[in-house]
């Protein structure tokens, strides 16, 4: 049995999740990461991604749309700018958002390439969470 850590996911509107886990997967700006208990203390910035919360054999998925993670020895705090469970995601809307973002990126005339990229990442993360 793997050691457990405390996990808290906080979004601006609520405490999104509070519980325990044995392994946590997410994508930081530096790349994909997995964290077990007893990780070195680390603060890292998140990309919009699907966060997988493993608790023994049980896996929960949530779409985390940007934010950062603070990892301490046996406690992980995720500050998410927006977080959603797969049940809450509107897939149609996410697909449309993806198309819109892709169009904007393809044209490249917009001033806001960066924003379109973020929107695209968010749309993809949402859809992946549902899968």
């Amino acid at each position, binding site marked *: 049995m793997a050691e457990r850590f405390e996990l808290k996911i*906080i979004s*601006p509107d609520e405490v999104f999740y509070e519980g325990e886990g044995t392994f946590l997967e997410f994508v930081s700006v*530096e790349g994909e990461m997995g964290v077990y208990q007893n990780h070195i203390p680390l*603060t890292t910035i998140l990309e919009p991604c699907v966060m997988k919360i493993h608790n023994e054999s049980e896996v929960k998925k949530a779409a985390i749309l940007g934010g950062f993670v603070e990892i301490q020895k046996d406690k992980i705090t995720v*500050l998410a700018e927006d977080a959603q469970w797969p049940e809450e995601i509107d897939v149609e809307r996410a697909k449309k958002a993806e198309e819109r973002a892709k169009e904007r990126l393809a044209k490249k005339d917009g001033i806001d390439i960066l924003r379109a990229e973020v929107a695209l990442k968010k749309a993809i993360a949402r859809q992946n969470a549902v899968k």
Partner: protein
Amino acid sequence: MASMREIKRRRSSVQSTQQITKAMKLISTVKLQKARTRAENSKAYFECMYATVTSMLAKAGNIEHPYLQKSDSKKVGIVVVTSNRGLAGGYNSNIVKLITGSGIEKENIRLYTVGHKGAEALERKGYEIVEDFSDVIEEPSYSDAQAISKRLLTDFAAGEIGEIYVAYTFFKNTVSHIPTLTKLLPVDTAAIAEEEKEGESSVDKLTLMNFEPEEEVAVGLLVPKYMTSILYGAFVEAVASENGARMQAMDSATNNAEEIIEDLALKYNRARQGAITQELTEIIAGAEAL
């Protein structure tokens, strides 16, 4: 003495005003409860954000980053959070007073207003309003706060403003709301370090925090998030304060109306009694004359 009819009319007019203020009080009580729950829910996020940013800055105290240094521009950007509706007692004028009495010269202030009332009052006084985001305060969302902080950071990066403040009403409790002026940028590292010494934050002091990417890069990514969370917190608090202030104002208005109604009722009865007495005297005098 005013005639009976006049008094009666006045009384019914005060009564209908009282009904309105009573209804408004009830509405703002409900709204206040809602806004308060929201403010409490977002507190966890804000506190955690604050703890992380302070611990990061305490550790990375000496790094050089535009967000941490005062820029050359003398202009000061202030986000002014007021309400779109009036009848909230001193709520809006307190914020306006906070700006006019802040000691910052009028010429150097550039305003980003949230809430029509404050925007109108400050415009009349001759302050420069760069942009108005008044619709936001109706139902503040985190993405609204993000949009505003993005706009602020663009102006900050362009050197148009050298400092950023936010003026809002802090919701201490139902009866006490404190107008507050808080500095957003540049981040006041000295003050944070001081606070860090005084109160133990949630982060264990003994653990040495690592950052990925490195502190310099992390500052650039985290500070906008930190700013957004303060802005969002300010909006949520302001909405709670607005409804609290309106509730109080409407409560005292209802009480005052009650007082006036009582007074008028007394006057009305007196006038009626006077009329009856007069009539009686006339009848008796008439009978005697026969």
